[in-house]
C-alpha cells in the first residue's frame, strides 16, 4: 500500500478530507518541479552551497502545506513558488541574524576565490550571470528569478507580489537593461 506523507499529526479537518499527499504523487511533483525550484533559489541567493538545503526545505513545506493548497485560488506552480519565495526570505532573515557578509566576499565565493573546495564549479558565463544578478535590487532579482528560473507568467508574478501586470513588465525590462550593462562590463557579451 502506498504510504501517506506527513511531517506532523493530521488536523481533524485533514483526517476528514484525506488531504495528505501520497508518496507517489509527491515524487512526481518533485521530479516535475525540482529544476525550477533549484534554479529559482540559485538566482536568489549568493551561496550555492546552501541551495540544496533550501530546495529540500521547500519540498518539505510542500508536504506540510499540501492539504491547504486550493487549486481554485492559484496555479500549483504559483503556489509552489510562493513557498520557495518564503523559504528564501526566511533564509535571508536567518543569515542576517547570524552574521553579515559583504557582497564582495560573496561574489568572491561564487567566483571561486575563497574556499574553492566548497564551491560548485560554475562555467564562466554562469559565474558572470550570478555576479550580474547580485547587482540587482532584491525586488528585481526576485522578479527575474520568478520569470526566468521559475518560469512563471507575468500575471502570476503580479498576483504573488501584489503588483500590476504592467508594473512587472516594467521592472523586468529595467532589470534586463541593468543585466545587459553589467554583463557588458564583464565582457560576457559578444
Amino acid at each position, binding site marked *: 500500500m502506498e504510504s501517506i*506523507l*506527513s*511531517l*506532523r*499529526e493530521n*488536523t*481533524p*479537518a485533514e483526517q476528514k478530507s484525506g488531504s495528505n499527499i501520497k*508518496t507517489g504523487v509527491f*515524487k512526481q511533483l*518533485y521530479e516535475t518541479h*525540482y*529544476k525550477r525550484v*533549484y*534554479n529559482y533559489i*540559485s*538566482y536568489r541567493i549568493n551561496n*550555492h552551497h546552501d*541551495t*540544496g538545503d533550501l*530546495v*529540500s526545505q521547500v*519540498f*518539505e513545506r510542500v*508536504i506540510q*502545506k499540501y492539504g*491547504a493548497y486550493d487549486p481554485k*485560488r492559484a496555479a500549483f506552480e504559483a*503556489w509552489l513558488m*510562493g*513557498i520557495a*519565495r*518564503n523559504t528564501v*526570505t526566511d533564509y*535571508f*532573515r536567518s543569515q542576517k541574524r547570524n552574521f553579515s557578509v559583504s557582497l564582495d566576499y560573496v561574489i568572491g565565493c561564487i567566483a571561486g576565490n575563497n574556499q574553492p573546495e566548497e564551491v*560548485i*564549479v*560554475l562555467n564562466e*558565463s*554562469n559565474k558572470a*550571470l550570478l555576479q550580474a544578478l547580485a547587482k540587482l535590487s*532584491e*525586488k528585481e532579482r*526576485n522578479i*527575474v528569478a520568478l520569470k*526566468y*528560473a521559475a518560469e512563471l507568467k507575468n500575471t502570476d508574478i503580479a*498576483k*504573488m*507580489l*501584489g503588483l500590476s501586470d504592467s508594473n512587472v513588465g516594467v521592472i523586468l525590462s529595467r532589470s*534586463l537593461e541593468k*543585466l*545587459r550593462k553589467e*554583463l*557588458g562590463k564583464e565582457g*560576457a*557579451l*559578444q
Partner: protein
Amino acid sequence: MNKENHSRQIEELLKTDFSRESDSQEKILNQILNKLENSRNIIEDKKESLPMKKIFVKPIFTAAMVVVLITGFVTTSFGQDLWRIIKEISVGKHAKYTVIERTGTPDLTIPEELKGKLYDKSGNVLAYFPENGAIYNQRGEEVLISVVVYENEDGSVVTKIEALSKEEQAARETSQMTTLTDPESAKPYLAFDFSLPAYLPEGYAFDRIQLFNDENGQPVENCEYASVYFSNGDQAKDIYLQLRLMNEETAYEADIGNVDEVEINGHKGIIGESNLDIEIDGVMYMFMAGASGINNEQLFKMAESIR
C-alpha cells in the same frame, strides 16, 4: 554594440539550468523521504502530548495583566511554589489556556533587558513591576510590555520581553504590516478563509485588516495570521480580532487570566475578562475588547453572528 543581439544573449543566459551543475536531485529526494520516515517515528513517540511548538502570548493592554503574564512565565520555569494551576482548558488540538492562582509573593523584579528603562509616573526608575498602575519610559510615555515566548528548533524556550510606547508599537505595526480596508482583498494572501461578524456593537464598523509583511514589504504569502480592527472612530477604543489558522506551527499556550469554556453555534472556545476566543473551521477568532468598554455579552453576540 548590438543591443538587440545582447538582449538575445541575456535571454539565452537566463535560461541557464543551474540544477544540471549539481547532481543533488536524487540525494535531496532521498533525504526528504528519510526525514519523513524519522519524523513519523517521532510523532508516534510523542502522540500522548499536545503538540505545542510555539507558545504564544497575546499583546498586553493593562499593567495588571503584565504582572500576571510575567509572573505566569516564572510559574512555568522555577516559580511553582508561588502559583498553582487551577484550571486548564484546551480548545481544539492546538490551543491551551491555563488559569493560575497565586499562592505566594511573586517575584516582580524587572528582567535584565529592561532594567533601568522603566519608570513610574513621577519619573523614578522602577526596580520592580508595580502590582497596579501604569509603567512609563524615560520620556514619560506610557509603555506596554509585550512578552513573547517561543520554542527554538532545538527545543530551548526563548522569552522576548519589550517595553514599547503606543507610538512605537503603532510604528512597528505599520512598518511590518500591510493595512487593507477591504477584508476580501486580504483573503488571497491568507492560508485560510474567514467570515467577519454580522453583528457589531452600536457605533462600531469594520475599520481595517492587517497582514504581516515579508522582507520586501509585501504581505507574506499563505499567511496563517491576520489582525482585524473594528472601530467607532476613536482608535483607542478599537475592538481587536486576531484570526489565526490553527496547526502545530501556530499552536499556543496562553495565560490570560480567568477563562471559562464556552460553546457558540456548536463551536468550542473560551471567554475571559474582555476576551473571547472561538475556533471555527480550524481558525481561531480571538476577540479582545481592549479599552473599548465593550462587555462580554457583546463579544458573545459578535462571535455568534459569524457565519
